[in-house]
């Protein structure tokens, strides 16, 4: 479990996150939702330790990340997998080498064992046929899957996904969402997902944190989300007619 307590973060005097507290649960998909620019990416990168927070605490199973020395932080980072908004695959390496990269950097396994592990992870995301292609030669959805394979190759305890389905069609989005959820349950990972895709929210929202203009304004799951009484949240989720209808149907008990 990751506990976020009273986190504040600003850039050059401009405050982006205001006093955010939330519990992110082990073995579950924890969603951070909010409008574009509300601070989701900043929150995620702060929790992951890429940005230094101004005040507050972030506890990884009780370990306070801001009090860690750099070698402790490096060890923690090997327990973290991260999927970036733009995939962030290394474009000078093939898909296979991308997935093998963390292994080559940090494990003492033999070349064969590393290759086997990489193949296993690529198989898990159904990407074995793209093994020797470069990131620029595969589609956006495949890039996301390759990035997932790279993120899970070291058996992470914590998985961060920044908009895993931005720029993907609804069907591929669903596949990616389900894949992340399955992996989360399978390996009991604490998974944090940033999204503004309402399909994902309804599909995999086990623990949802809603961020509005840098403030946490609601937390709950995907059944509670229909009756929150939170105006900002309603405006975000039920912005389209389709979701308004779904909400109505839900309230009428259909």
């Amino acid at each position, binding site marked *: 479990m990751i506990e976020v307590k009273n986190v504040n973060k600003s850039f050059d005097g401009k405050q982006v996150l205001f006093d955010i507290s939330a519990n992110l649960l082990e073995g579950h998909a924890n969603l951070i939702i909010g409008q574009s620019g509300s601070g989701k990416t900043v929150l995620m990168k702060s929790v992951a330790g890429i940005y230094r927070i101004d005040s507050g605490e972030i506890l990884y199973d009780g370990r306070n990340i801001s009090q860690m020395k750099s070698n402790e932080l490096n060890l923690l*980072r090997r327990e973290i997998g991260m999927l*970036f908004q733009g995939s*962030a695959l290394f474009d000078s390496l093939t898909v296979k080498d991308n997935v093998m990269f963390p292994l080559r950097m940090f494990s003492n396994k033999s070349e064969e064992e590393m290759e086997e592990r990489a193949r296993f992870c690529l198989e898990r995301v159904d990407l074995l046929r793209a093994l020797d292609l470069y990131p620029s030669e595969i589609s956006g959805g495949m890039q996301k899957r390759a990035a997932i394979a790279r993120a899970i190759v070291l058996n992470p305890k914590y998985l961060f996904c920044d908009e895993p389905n931005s720029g993907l069609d609804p069907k591929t989005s669903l596949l990616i969402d389900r894949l992340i959820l399955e992996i989360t349950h399978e390996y009991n990972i604490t998974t944090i997902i940033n999204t503004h895709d309402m399909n994902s929210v309804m599909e995999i929202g086990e623990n949802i944190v809603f961020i509005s203009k840098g403030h946490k304004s609601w937390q709950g799951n995907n059944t509670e989300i229909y009756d929150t009484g939170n105006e900002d949240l309603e405006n975000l989720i039920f912005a389209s007619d389709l979701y308004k209808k779904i909400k109505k149907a839900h309230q009428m008990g259909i």
Partner: protein
Amino acid sequence: MNAIERVGDYSRLMWKTFSKPDSWKMFGKQYVRELHKQGINSLPIVCIISVFIGAVICIQMRINTESPFLPSQLTGYATRETMILEFSSAILCLILAGKVGSNIASEIGTMRITEQIDALDIMGVNSANYLILPKILAFVTMIPCLVTFSITTGLLGGFGVALFTEMITPMEYEQGIQYSFLPYSIQYSIEKSLVFAFIVTSIASYYGYTVKGGAREVGKASTNAVVNSSVIILLFDVMLTKLLLS
């Protein structure tokens, strides 16, 4: 950001860069790749420019020193001295700042804006060390070869003039380039170039690594890298010449 902050920022980045690699094997791989990219791939441009500059210097020296009172060896001598003392170290590094420097700044800058550097950091890799150190070391390793190659091809360019024109005989040119030769001047040239190579690669890496924004900023970083490293090379050229030669 003012100049002093920049220097501080740059020093901090270099401090992060010069540390023990997380994996020597990966470092070796990157290093060899950079040797090839910055060293071998620069040979054609070094060759072309040096041959032509060598030839031009030879022609101009001949035209300006054509007088019965001046020895005919002067042309070869002056060509050699110009190539060794200035062209093949300082000017060559200025030219390579354009090729190698802009390449490094845009490569690292693109990795920054596409979050590839964040991806390295989150894995617990020292991204500055992994990306920058092999580039600096590879170019510093290759620069003595490039300088020597440039001197050689430059002198051959001059020899071409002697061979294919009536301005000067090959014999006179040969005598000229051997006249009063000081081996120390080669050492001086290479020592200077080592400093310049460090300046080009480290400044380009700094500008690339600290890009914020998008593709436009990457372009700007690459321009800044070339302009600033060129100015600093020229400053150091004056200082090093004063220190090493007088």
